[in-house]
């Protein structure tokens, strides 16, 4: 493969901007017209109940009704790791908002009216609404039949309300904690739920065409939608086609199948095209949030700052069904277990069932709060042993050939030089301010720097490149443009560089499972890496075929030919060759049109055998590191926190589109500021979210933000195409950590929870905050695992 990395680097603008700016883009919510009928879901309004009677007969004869679906129409259950999730409640309701029936009618109003005509008789059951309740001895079980469920992934401990438990054990932590020369630091931390609030809610338009389901949907994962829909309908996957229009924001929320099977069932039953769109209230109240979590970390540290032992337990609320949290238990090993060299380590990462709406994936899932807990804990260690916070980090961050929590060997020194780069960035703006200092306006100044470890979620991707007679190329993948721009920036840039054409000449087909090969989906920072690598491999095949034909035409060996500016040239002799169009035309007479296919999957970095149990990924194929620095001011009268400056040094492998990465850093950090300071879903005693819309759920506004200063760290090892790593997910990783640590530094108080809302900050300042107690997480680590 010729070295085309430099040719791929440019600030190529996105091609979908103009239609989006003109209001011409058709998102799934915009598909409509008189041929489309409208569906609604009848949802539970209690957290836990037995269904005594469900009667839809009266609703069937309501005006305009075309189809009604209930559990009888969807026999299968789905899930990640465990098939614990039926799409309709049958005998039992497990959360407020759980679907019970789906109704399609000519108009939305008629569908709502019919839903009201359904007879539902319930008998209340006790509910567990918090993880503490769920873990009590003799707590009601959210899934009394948990032992009978299909296991889709072997190896985890499960039991009662513990949906999934992943553990790590490397080295002898008991011996480490017993050493006479160590200080033991014990900390507990808690975070709330964060709602994604994509501006396009989850939405689907389904049709039944030529004996198959066609699902147009606002998703990040067309192949997951295909798989789950087939599974719950108990039909072959080949009977489901998924296509994806422009997606109006995802942030991880759309990394699961959600509304699609309901619309598919209704489309088949009615013979009509069915639109099902969450109202904003439904979208908010059944959001598959970033989960609330409760964390305990204990560390044994020597006087010179060596972490000889670490034990931690992370409780992740999965809500009523396991969902993504089952998978995400894996990530604790790589986030909370990341950043620092550990002499020995034991981790218990548990997904806990509660009678609350299920949670899901959200940008840098799990990593955001584990980094908050880890970095706060690290500062507490520094205070306990009397060491400077930066010195401790410089001594302990993982570097070349260090081993991670599960025993994987890291390559390259990345975090340590990134800290130096951050210190250089900060040195450009000396202000002489000290933590806790009063500014001229009376506010309290705070500052912190933190480090973070994240990863690229690699896995299978496929790509086909068709070289067209006009010299353009069509890239066919299952990639989805969710807004982040990977499909608009990185992929055409990679293909263009691979074929020596302009990126404008690369047509990027929108996702269609009938046209493209399987793909894990757009999320986990994987689009540029996994789909990009598959695309680059497809280009290699195209180039080989193209050069073989050109070689005969130009009477020159293929290795002496280069592709550039839409031409095949003899190396070192510009103008000597011919155009790609002419080679394609010649190929059509000899072998036929030129196309290539490419594939990619996880290379499979090894962990130390026996360290990890119940993990979906034992080691991370592409680690990603980040260093953040924040300066802020706290108003002591109101508890209001203003971000004064925010800086990011991010490990990107190779930056293909600097401007696009800037957009991801600015957007990701601001989403993190919301998480750190004011975004929180709370659950009331009815098991229902308090924040039902934009009035109660406070999103960052233009006046809340500052320009993020950043420095891209390039050159760290990566198996991504052209040395890339995903750059869109990681910017949010250590924002909660950095702001939390800065507020702790400003106030001199223990900061153990996010978000740091004005009332919570005022309570800290006034000494009214009660120390966080998590009595349901034992100080004896082995008590926090089913494997004891």
């Amino acid at each position: 493969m010729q070295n085309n990395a430099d040719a791929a680097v440019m600030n190529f603008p996105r091609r979908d901007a103009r239609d989006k700016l003109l209001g011409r883009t058709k998102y799934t919510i915009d598909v409509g017209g008189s041929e489309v009928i409208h569906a609604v879901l009848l949802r539970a309004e209690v957290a836990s109940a037995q269904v005594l009677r469900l009667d839809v007969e009266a609703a069937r004869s309501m005006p305009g009704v075309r189809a009604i679906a209930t559990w009888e129409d969807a026999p299968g259950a789905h899930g990640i790791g465990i098939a614990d999730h039926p799409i309709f409640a049958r005998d039992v309701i497990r959360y407020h908002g759980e679907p019970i029936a789906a109704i399609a009618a000519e108009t939305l109003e008629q569908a709502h009216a019919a839903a009201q005509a359904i007879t539902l008789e319930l008998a209340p059951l006790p509910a567990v609404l918090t993880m503490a309740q769920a873990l009590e001895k003799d707590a009601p079980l959210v899934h009394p039949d948990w032992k009978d469920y299909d296991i889709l992934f072997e190896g985890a401990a499960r039991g009662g309300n513990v949906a999934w438990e992943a553990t790590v054990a490397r080295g002898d932590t008991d011996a480490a904690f017993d050493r006479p020369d160590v200080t033991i630091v014990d900390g507990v931390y808690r975070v709330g739920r964060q709602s994604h609030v994509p501006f396009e809610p989850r939405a689907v338009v389904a049709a039944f065409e030529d004996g198959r389901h066609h699902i147009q949907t606002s998703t990040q994962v067309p192949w997951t939608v295909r798989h789950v829909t087939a599974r719950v309908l108990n039909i072959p996957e080949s009977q489901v086609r998924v296509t994806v229009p422009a997606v109006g924001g995802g942030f991880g929320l759309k990394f699961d199948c959600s509304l699609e099977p309901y619309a598919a069932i209704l489309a088949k039953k009615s013979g009509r095209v069915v639109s099902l769109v969450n109202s904003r209230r439904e979208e908010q109240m059944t959001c598959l949030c970033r989960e609330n979590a409760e964390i305990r970390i204990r560390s044994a540290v020597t006087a010179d700052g060596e972490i000889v032992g670490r034990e931690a337990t992370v409780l992740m609320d999965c809500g009523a069904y396991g969902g993504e949290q089952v998978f995400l238990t894996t990530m604790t090993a790589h986030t909370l277990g990341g950043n620092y060299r550990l002499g020995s380590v034991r981790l218990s990462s548990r997904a806990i069932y509660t009678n609350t709406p299920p949670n899901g994936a959200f940008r840098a899932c799990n990593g955001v709060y584990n980094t908050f807990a880890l970095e706060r804990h690290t500062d507490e260690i520094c205070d306990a042993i009397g060491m400077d916070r930066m010195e401790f980090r410089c001594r302990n961050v993982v570097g070349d050939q260090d081993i991670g929590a599960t025993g994987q060997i890291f390559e390259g020194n990345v975090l340590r030089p990134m800290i130096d780069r951050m210190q250089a960035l900060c040195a450009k703006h000396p202000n002489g301010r000290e933590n806790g200092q009063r500014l001229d306006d009376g506010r309290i100044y705070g500052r912190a720097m933190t480090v973070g470890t994240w990863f690229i979620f690699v896995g299978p991707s496929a790509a086909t490149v068709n070289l067209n007679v006009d010299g353009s190329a069509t890239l066919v993948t299952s990639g989805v443009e969710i807004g982040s721009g990977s499909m608009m920036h990185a992929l055409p840039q990679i293909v263009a560089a691979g074929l020596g054409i302009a990126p404008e000449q690369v047509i990027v087909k929108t996702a269609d499972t009938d046209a493209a090969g399987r793909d894990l989906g757009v999320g986990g920072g994987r689009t540029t890496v996994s789909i990009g690598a598959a695309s680059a491999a497809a280009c290699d095949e195209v180039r080989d075929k193209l050069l073989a034909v050109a070689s005969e035409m130009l009477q020159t060996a293929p290795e002496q030919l280069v592709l550039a500016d839409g031409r095949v040239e003899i190396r070192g002799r510009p103008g000597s060759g011919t155009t790609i169009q002419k080679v394609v035309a010649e190929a059509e007479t000899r072998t036929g049109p030129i196309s290539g296919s490419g594939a990619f999957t996880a290379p499979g970095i090894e962990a130390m055998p026996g360290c990890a149990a119940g993990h979906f990924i034992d080691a991370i194929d592409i680690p990603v590191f980040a260093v953040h620095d924040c300066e802020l001011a706290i108003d002591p009268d109101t508890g209001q926190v203003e971000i004064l400056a925010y800086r990011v040094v991010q490990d990107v492998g190779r930056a293909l589109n600097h401007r696009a990465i800037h957009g991801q850093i600015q957007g990701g950090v601001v989403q993190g500021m919301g998480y750190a300071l004011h975004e929180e879903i709370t659950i009331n005693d009815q098991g229902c979210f308090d924040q039902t819309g934009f009035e109660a759920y406070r999103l960052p506004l233009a006046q809340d933000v500052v320009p993020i200063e950043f420095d891209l760290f390039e050159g760290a090892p990566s198996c991504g195409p052209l040395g890339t790593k995903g750059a869109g997910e990681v910017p949010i990783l250590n924002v909660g950590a950095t702001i939390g640590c800065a507020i702790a530094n400003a106030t001199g108080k223990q900061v153990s929870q996010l978000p740091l809302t004005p009332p919570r900050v005022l309570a800290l300042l006034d000494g009214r905050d009660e120390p966080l107690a998590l009595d349901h997480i034992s100080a004896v680590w082995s008590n926090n695992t089913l494997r004891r």
Partner: protein
Amino acid sequence: MTITLTVNREERIFSGDPRTPLVDVLRDHLRMTGTKAVCREGFCGACMVHVDGAPMASCLLPVGSLDGAAVTTIEGVATMEHLNAVQQAFEDHDVVQCGMCFPGMVMTMSRFFQTNTSPDRDEIKAAMTGNICRCTGYERIIDALMSIRTNEVTS
């Protein structure tokens, strides 16, 4: 009840419940889907239109109150070939992400630049406060808007 209004300089007649929000009339009845219904409670700004020249949240406007009004939507501020200055700045600076908030933002800021042709950064931010964006973190949008301060904006 029949309501007559002009939408993008064309007369339109709506017969139906006068309480129907303008955004639903535009999207469902006229099938002009550029105006986005996101929060439906007047907080997000994605459904901004101009009513007799003033930017307003179309989710909060019962169509019955608009008899005789002149409504301009995102479909009416530019042509495919010629964007207005706000749209052009957003395209030139490549600031669009998912795009759902941009039609409303274009409507708000196009009008704002007619009232203040040379605003400073803080004034632009203040004007943007009623338009929420979940993707971008705003600052690059502000950068784009700063670039057109002295240009003329038409909408």
